[in-house]
């Protein structure tokens, strides 16, 4: 049942991605169809996730596939919220394929390792995971915004003006949105790391064990922190800021997807 719903979600997201692209390249007037479709996909996604958590408990986020399912749900949810204030169809054209890839991976990766010992299953678990994933979702969106920024910037610099560009928001608003996402993402990530560290300290006795996941998120944290600092004090903005945002997200994503299999860590299923 769950698997079927997850597959259905992935299929709907794929459809949404196609309709966003179609809308961007072809449609002459703005259309609400892709957003409406995305909302439909999000509802199926929500049902799939609820039923998963009801059956397996929240601890199932330790499983890679389920983690992806939860993280993509947060990302789409935040995008839909942003959409209320900033109708950015172009961002949808990045979020929808990303959501498709994540939900597709969710059932392609499937179960895999990841059992959290009952001793660890305290309130720290949902707190740490939700905060960390919310941060990830913000950065995923910031990544999307940065991609659009760079495309728009490139077009303007090279004086190649296409119809597609007309659907892009202005550089100023893209940069502003990127900044706001960073302003939300960074504290969330900080809290995610802090709660994780406290949790580890309480249950394992050491707050920081140089676990590869801790190192990689620490790296990303430093990077995003430097970016935020640069933005506030030195006017680090525009192209450089967009590039740094993308690098930061690659660190987060890269480790999230493949890190555990290359550098065994306590997050990768061995929570002993």
């Amino acid at each position, binding site marked *: 049942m769950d698997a079927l719903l997850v597959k259905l979600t992935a299929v709907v997201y794929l459809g949404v991605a196609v309709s966003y692209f179609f809308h961007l390249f072809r449609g002459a007037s703005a259309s609400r169809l892709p957003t409406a479709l995305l909302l439909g996909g999000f509802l199926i996604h929500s049902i799939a996730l609820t039923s998963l958590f009801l059956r397996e408990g929240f601890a199932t986020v330790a499983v890679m596939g389920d983690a992806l399912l939860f993280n993509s749900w947060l990302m789409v949810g935040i995008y839909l919220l942003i959409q209320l204030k900033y109708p950015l169809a172009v961002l949808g054209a990045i979020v929808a394929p990303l959501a498709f890839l994540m939900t597709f991976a969710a059932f392609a990766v499937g179960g895999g390792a990841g059992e959290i010992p009952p001793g660890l299953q305290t309130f720290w678990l949902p707190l740490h995971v939700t905060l960390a994933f919310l941060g990830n979702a913000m950065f995923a969106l910031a990544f999307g915004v940065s991609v659009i920024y760079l495309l728009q910037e490139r077009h303007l*610099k090279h004086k190649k*003006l296409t*119809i597609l560009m007309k659907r892009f928001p202005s*550089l100023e608003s893209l940069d502003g949105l990127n900044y706001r996402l960073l302003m939300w993402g960074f504290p969330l990530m900080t809290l995610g790391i802090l709660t994780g560290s406290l949790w580890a300290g309480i249950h394992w006795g050491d707050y920081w064990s140089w676990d590869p996941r801790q190192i990689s998120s620490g790296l990303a944290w430093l990077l995003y922190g430097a970016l935020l600092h640069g933005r506030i004090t030195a006017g680090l903005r525009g192209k*450089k800021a967009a590039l740094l945002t993308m690098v930061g997200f690659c660190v987060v994503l890269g480790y999230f997807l493949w890190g555990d299999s290359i550098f065994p860590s306590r997050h990768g299923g061995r929570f002993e």
Partner: protein
Amino acid sequence: MQKQIVIVGLNHRSAPIEVRESVAFENVYVREALVHLRDYPSIDEGVILSTCNRVEVIAAAGDVRSAFDDINGFLAQQKAQRHAEPLDDHVYTYEGAEAVRHLFRVAASLDSMVIGEPQILGQLKQYYDAAQQAGTVGAVLHRLFHRSFSVAKRVRSETGIGSGAVSVSSIAVDLAKRIFDRFDDKTVMLIGAGKIGDLMARHLQSHGVKNLMVTNRTFERAVSLAEKIHGNPIRFEDFPRYLKMADLVIGCAGAPEILIAAATVEKILRERKQKAMFFIDIGDRRNFDAKINNLDNVYLYNIDDLKSVAEENLQERASEAEKAEGIVLEEAQTFVRWLGSLEQVPTITALRQRFEEIRRREIEKSLGGSLKDLSAEQRAAVQDMTTAMVNKMLHGPISQLRKSSPEELEDPTLYVAALKKLFDLEDK
């Protein structure tokens, strides 16, 4: 009599400007001219359209040939007041479905000199209103014009024909909109008090720009322009100091030297905390260092860049125009079908009556003569049989008439006219 749409006119392609001007109608005389036009017995309804690129008479008439002659005479008379040469070589004529299509193309700006320019629709509306006030519009032209307005709207929303600016200053504003989200908190610096800079500044103001600085080598000119456009005049030697406040910098100093170097902009950017800047070098001579464009968060466009964007947008419009032609054709067919249907229903009724009349007359003759011995039952059977025969015979032609002109731009009025003639159905 079946009404047809006829158009006689000349435009920027068919006639040079002197000829167009010689037949153009001045606004104040349009009403008078309309009434005069309607005085021709062949013209049932009429609208005059007169812009700098075209003069056209759109009319509804029963007899197309004499309508053409009359309108030509009408235009020649208009011209005769100014020149004596004949108009024949410069005039085009359309009738029926082609006339409908032509008007729809004009309304949708497919026939304009700059394809997709939006003014023509407003002009068309204005001249239609004038005709309505003069009382020269009837049911047919009323419907035709209102249809043409909605066709124009449809073309605008379903194709990109009006998208992409084609004038230099609107392209510059378009570009600025892709860099900046809003203009009301931006500052513009105008270097040089030339005409094009003035135009550019006004264009930006209409998009919300509030703060404007004007500088010029001759300070008095900067002052007078600043006064006109509500800006702040700045002495030429001072402008580099104010540059860091400007988000948009427009150069049209006409001087043959570089006024702003890339290194200067780099320094300014640091002071501005890298806030984006847009340089527009709009004069014929370059005032801004081309290397400025290589700096992050700075964009530099010169007049040639803007012109090549205009060229691209025009090409884009031309390819969108193909889509628009499809819409126009489809709408013209629908309209022509409606026009035909005005005559269809009475024609079908008349055709049925005709056949029924013949049947009844013949039945009466036979039942009163050679068939007078038939029983009541047999009489009824003969009645039924003949009625069925008539219905079957008429079924084909009538259904053909009803769905007339499905694919091509074929004129259904042809069928109506043919039937009327063949079966002698003249309106009684």
